């Protein structure tokens, strides 16, 4: 066996460099992928929480799906339940002309959103008013892990 100092060392260095590049790319992609998976999990959790709010927590007394009644106490109780499981949440109901009808957990959100990733989404909901009329509003839900 014969060692060619010039060409063999060059080949070895090249192979090692390429391996390093590949390893770095692999690590980066894996990192991005796991971050995406975590974001996706958070997002699925957010969609579940929003669905719970619309279909159970805020559902109108006559149980009609899609129609909600605003209840601060029920939302606060639900937010507390999630908090016990390590998930913080803020909920807002805003009318289409920008009037805020309900806001729960907003102060927590402004304090914590610098330190953890958060997911947020908004959905149209029909709110049943006290006089029996209905109003199309936007339900804004934001969650983050504590």
């Amino acid at each position, binding site marked *: 066996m014969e060692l060619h100092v010039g060409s063999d060392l060059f080949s070895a260095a*090249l192979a090692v460099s390429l391996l390093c590049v590949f390893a770095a790319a692999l690590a980066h992609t894996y990192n991005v992928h796991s971050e995406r998976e975590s974001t996706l999990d958070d997002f699925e959790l957010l969609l579940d929480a*929003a669905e719970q709010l619309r279909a159970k927590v805020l559902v109108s007394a006559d149980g009609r799906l899609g129609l909600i009644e605003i209840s601060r106490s029920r939302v606060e109780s639900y937010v507390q339940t999630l908090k016990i499981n390590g998930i913080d949440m803020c909920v807002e109901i805003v009318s*289409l002309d920008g009037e805020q009808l309900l806001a729960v957990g907003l102060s927590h959100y402004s304090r914590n959103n610098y330190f953890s990733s958060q997911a947020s989404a908004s959905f*149209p909901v029909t709110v049943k008013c006290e006089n029996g*009329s209905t109003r199309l509003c936007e339900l804004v839900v934001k969650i983050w892990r504590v």
Partner: protein
Amino acid sequence: MDKGIGQVADILVFALLISIAITALSAVVLVDLRVEVSLYASNLAQSTLLSFQYSTAEQFGGFEYQLGAFGFEANFPLAMESTRRDLRYKTLCQLIEETALLNLRVEVAGVAVPLLRPNMAMEGCLEVLLKRVLDLTVGGKFEYRLLVRTVPVDLGFVQLIFEMEISKLSGTKDQMCSETMALSLPTTEEELMEILRPFKSVPSVAFDPDPIIEVGLELWS
């Protein structure tokens, strides 16, 4: 010389393998992103269709139109007052049902038969109203297409149909979701028979006892 060529070939194969591996991994990441958007779009479309059931036209500037026939509308004040229908108190679903019922079209062998449709203006007004609602609810996030159609009463050579499409689509897009809601067409077999009375050979058993209207909302990104 041969050895050099061999090394270059090795390097190229190695680089090719790296490229394939990176491409495969990147594809996985991109697929996840689409799943997330698609999940949200599906939820948003469902919420929007549900909100149609309880939101009245009043919140979106009202809903009124003039009765007319063959495109003719009475333009003198007394007649305008008596032929105006103000339906601001109705929900969007009720308006869709009523518009579909009052604007059913008859097609014989694929050719539309002109009928006296005094509520023709209702269809145009509903399109404007639904577009306004969709722009407010989903318009800022996705492009959309709303399809309203009756499941056609198909009697072979005669069809009784209603179709309406409202869309805001520009260029080639990816469809994120398609959600459908079924409403019942508020009519009876006798009323449908009345529309088809000129076509004597229609068998009465041909009707679905509970004809429905499909309201489909597609979101595109």
